């Protein structure tokens, strides 16, 4: 019966699609009516027959994805998910990475319905590796990194395992990379090479020299050269001598005369460019040698004042100077007021996290903070009580509160102008960065301070700080 009706209505459909009058002769509902009426009755039946009597057939081939993997950390509870979605909607990539990093530091992951990490996981916590693998359709397996498992591992997972291996058995890690990394893309080779700062030894020299001379990527070559420089294994005598020729060693000071090393005055633009290029390739030790001084003297005598950004000399020190020489020069920059917080972020692979935090703390206490974002770059999210206390007592925080208070007061009087709007908009950015840095108690203190400055408790500026406070239960 159903089959008959189906066949009849399918035939009618074919006729109507092409245009014309469908055969309604066998239709009991259309029986006895005129031709037009019969067509309408047949159409009404056709409208309902499939929807009421038939069911969609199961497709022959379906792709069912594996269930989401178990994650290393719990996901954000449902009650905080709307707040997370709001914060992720409006933030730039840096803030998004900061927020995800902050949550991981508090021991919680974003709910996968709300956010999935990008495939490269670049800048996001390793705790998301299982989700990245799931999303890429890769198998979840937890074998240790070895020659056999190298190919099977997902890049982010391999990177993590390689870093761990380099920390324990650097030679085995190097041998694995030598054997397998040649066919990897440049960004993955570069990321693996970054792990060589752990356990760097003369045994790595041969491989690094091969990379420095023959790798396909200029970035990999430069990175290998930097590592070789730290091993004092760079033959850059000619370049170093050329760079030294652009420098002068003089004495300065009226009473206490002391030696200084500086670039020659009156370099023309082409020479300045050449100096910049040479700073990128010459190693610290080679330059000291070309100048005829020991490295500690170079670090103690090179001028600091002209450097208002991560200056080429500082970058060279970070890349290739011994740590004590680097810290000597950095100490002089701080003493001369030339050091800025954002420069410190580049020290990440030369100092431990504890040393970075100590340095950052010193700079915050010395009033060298011009934006909270650079503090985040240096110390990472959820930076602990000492940083929180220092930030809440620093000049920048006081200025931020004061400016916001004045802007809110003006706005309340209806005197909103460009400056007021800008100050309040900057408040958004400052509050976000503070929320990513501070402990929950400190975040609550900021909320209270900003309310005192005139913000209503419900103001969206306070959202990230409230999110921080609500995540306190997840503090490890």
């Amino acid at each position, binding site marked *: 019966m159903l089959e008959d009706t189906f066949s009849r209505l399918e035939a009618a459909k074919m006729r*109507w699609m092409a245009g014309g009058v469908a055969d309604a002769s066998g239709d009991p509902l259309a029986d006895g009516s005129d031709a037009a009426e019969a067509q309408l009755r047949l159409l009404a039946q056709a409208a309902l027959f499939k929807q009421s009597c038939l069911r969609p057939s199961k*497709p022959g081939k379906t792709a069912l994805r594996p269930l989401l993997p178990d994650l290393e950390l719990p996901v954000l509870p449902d009650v905080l*998910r709307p707040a997370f979605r709001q914060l992720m909607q409006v933030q730039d990539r840096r803030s998004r990475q900061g927020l995800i990093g902050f949550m991981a530091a508090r021991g919680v992951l974003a709910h996968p319905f709300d956010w999935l990490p990008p495939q490269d996981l670049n800048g996001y916590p390793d705790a998301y590796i299982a989700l990245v693998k799931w999303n890429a359709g890769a198998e979840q397996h937890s074998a240790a990194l070895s020659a056999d498992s190298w190919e099977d591992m997902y890049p982010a997972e391999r990177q993590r395992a390689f870093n761990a291996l380099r920390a324990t058995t650097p030679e085995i890690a190097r041998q694995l990379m030598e054997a397998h990394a040649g066919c990897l893309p440049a960004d993955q080779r570069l990321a693996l090479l970054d792990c060589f700062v752990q356990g760097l030894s003369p045994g790595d020299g041969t491989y690094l020299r091969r990379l420095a001379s023959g790798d396909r990527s200029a970035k990999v070559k430069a990175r290998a050269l930097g590592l070789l420089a730290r091993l004092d294994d760079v033959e850059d005598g000619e370049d170093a001598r050329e760079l030294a020729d652009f420098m002068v060693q003089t004495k300065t000071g009226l009473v206490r005369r002391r030696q200084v090393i500086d670039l020659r005055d009156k370099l023309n633009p082409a020479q300045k460019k050449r100096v910049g290029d040479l700073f990128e390739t010459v190693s610290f030790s080679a330059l000291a040698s070309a100048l005829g001084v020991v490295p500690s003297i170079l670090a103690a005598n090179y001028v600091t004042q002209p450097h208002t950004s991560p200056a080429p000399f500082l970058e060279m020190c970070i890349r290739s100077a011994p740590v004590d020489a680097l810290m000597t020069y950095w100490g002089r920059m701080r003493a001369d007021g030339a050091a800025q917080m954002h420069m410190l972020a580049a020290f990440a692979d030369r100092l431990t996290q504890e040393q970075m935090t100590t340095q950052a703390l010193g700079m915050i206490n010395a009033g060298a903070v011009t934006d909270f974002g650079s503090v985040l770059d240096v110390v990472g999210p959820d930076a602990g009580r000492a940083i929180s206390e220092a930030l809440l007592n620093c000049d920048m925080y006081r200025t931020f509160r004061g400016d916001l208070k004045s802007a809110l007061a003006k*706005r309340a009087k209806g005197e909103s102008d460009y400056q007021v709007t800008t100050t309040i908009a900057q408040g958004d950015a400052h509050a976000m960065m503070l929320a990513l840095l501070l402990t929950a108690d400190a975040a609550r203190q900021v909320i209270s301070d900003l309310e005192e400055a005139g913000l209503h408790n419900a103001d969206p500026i306070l959202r990230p700080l409230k999110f921080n406070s609500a995540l306190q239960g997840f503090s490890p």
Partner: protein
Amino acid sequence: MSLTTSAIEHVAPDQASLKAANKLLSPGKWPERVVSGDSALIWGACQGSGANPYRVAVDLRDLGAKCSCPSRKFPCKHALALMLFYSSQAADFTPGEVPDWVAEWLGRRRKTVTPAKSDGETKSLAAAQQPEPAKPVDPKVAARNAAAAAKRAKATQAAIADGLADMEAWVLDQLRTGLSDLLGDLTGRCRRIASRLVDAKAGPLAGRIDGIPARVLAMPQTARADALIAELGKLVILARSWADDCDPAVRRVITGAENREDLLNNKDALRHDGLWEVLASRDETRRDGLIARSTWLLALNGAGPSFALLQDFFSASAGKQGAAFAIGEQMQANLVFYPGPMPLRAQIVDRHVVEDHTPWPALPETGDTLRAFSEALTREPWLTDVPILLPAGRLAQAGDTPIWLGGDSALPLLSNTLPDAVFGAELRQSVVLWNGHAADLLAAETNLGRYYADA
């Protein structure tokens, strides 16, 4: 923070607004009146003429106001009424946490705050509170008006019947000239017959026909012929169901829904007081310049209807309207359903926010996942979309089409923008809008928590 009557009079745009606000000072119209902990903000929900209550917020520090109603007056009567309530009955406001929609408004108004301006007109609350004198009614005029109304109703009925006959003839023409041709010019041809129906005073039916191209062309190529036949066939069924004393559900589709007051006064209308969860809220911009907002509710307890649809219309030119509910919100609400064989569309009579979160109701054992749809078509065969609660299942891909798989059933899904992670979750229960060809996933209860498509 105290609020004086003179301050409210000062910010009112005109005397008429004050008068209109005064008529809203009945606690029954305000299921929700809340004040923030620091008494700087008040907000509430005012039941207006729409299905969704209007959300009103006032910043008491400068009497800035926000309301989700489409009024162009600022502040509108709802905001003024909330201020008047607070000035006289502040103790009746319950203290509460500032909700997100108020916080968002606070954030947005940072850039737009301007001091209140007075237009110089004298405005007085005392005058607004004066009762309007009753107008004497002349019996002859009343009889004349009644006769004119009856004549108009008869003419309307005749115009609609003519329009429906034209629509049937149009359907026959499409069958004769070929549905393949129609698919090639679907928007233009639907527009032409829809215009004819607007002239025939069947505006809602015209709106439905204007929506056919969007609904049909959203289908995969292979399903479009069936979808088009279903749309046309249901138009024929609607036309044949039309009569002077036809079912109110038919009249609603063809000429429009009865107004809120009539619905509330209808003693036969089904009422259901229960716990409801807001599943989804969809805005559809229509050809006539209106935005249709559909809010889907799921009943969490009681023996009444399983779903309710709150439907509102507002002008697209009035700008984006704030949603009346948060997705996922649960509330104790008394709903009155528009009469019909399949009660679905409803209005809220009153509601209370609940703090506890109640799980979804257990699904009765049935082998046929689409049985609810078949039953709905038996009652109202012209229906296009019906909400269905689905049992445990998973999402999968069949080629490019996402599908829901559960037991022996497989339902194609409309959206290709479902988040990847939902495909890796066990769906314990799901709510979809089934249109006879494909399902639109609204929400799901999963092993990883709730998923809401509109959150």
